[in-house]
């Protein structure tokens, strides 16, 4: 793998009840996912505010994923 390859920083907003639980399970199962994906637990994907997305981009994220 080329060392200078662009690796986007992704903020993943995950619903507590499904996607976050799935990510947790993935961890328990020792399944790897890219280190550039940072998971942020939210109570529900309906709690996601456009402001969170803007703040993620403003603070340097290259992409935002919403999972729920």
């Amino acid at each position, binding site marked *: 793998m080329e060392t200078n390859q662009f690796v986007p920083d992704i903020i993943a907003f995950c619903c507590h009840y499904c996607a976050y639980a799935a990510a947790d399970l993935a961890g328990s199962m020792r399944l790897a996912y890219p280190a550039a994906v940072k998971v942020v637990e939210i109570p529900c994907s309906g709690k996601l*505010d456009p402001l969170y997305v803007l703040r993620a981009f403003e603070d340097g994220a290259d992409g935002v994923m919403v999972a729920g």
Partner: protein
Amino acid sequence: MIIAERKPLDEIKTLVDDAQKVLVVGCGTCVTVCFAGGSREAQITAASLRMSTKLDGNGKNVGDVTVQRQCEWEYLDEIKDQVEDADMVLSLGCGIGVQAIAEHFPESWVVPGLNTTFLGIPSEQGVWEERCAACGDCILGLTGGICPIARCSKSLLNGPCGGSEAGHCEIDPDVPCAWQLIYDRLSSKDKLHVILDLQPPKNWSTSRDGGPRKIVREDLRLKAEEA
């Protein structure tokens, strides 16, 4: 309530172009309820301005604060220091809020971030409709609670015009004819006789025809020593 819409970001960027330090001021009353200029919208607008101007190569220092009501001096006093510290204020209040800030902080420069649109109601989630024209001489008691000034495209006072078709206005088939609504409402209440009574010409001097309006309530004013 007062209904407003946020201006496009490009227009806002043009308005704040001269300033390096911008304070976005939201309002916690009408424009919060219509999702145009509350705390959330102030934060979103500030973040959008910071990112957009940074991408343009001229990143501005943009902060935000929201007061309960921009149209009252007491609430504006709370943000005095922040206003004085900024090069420019971007008000997300209605036109009244913008002018209140300009009047209360004469040394500051304030620009509007919203287009104040009308007095109305949220008729359903995400839909706002005009209901009042603030004419100063309310006739809703004659029209079954439906305002022909605000809701008839021609503000007619003597029934529908020839453009009323199947209950809709000729300007747009989605716009109900106010006079059809009035007729139907009075008819359903068995009160059609109300619009058969002759009415004198409406007193438009209480509306904008009389110039800027002002109400003085001497019973509520503070005496000089109390003010």
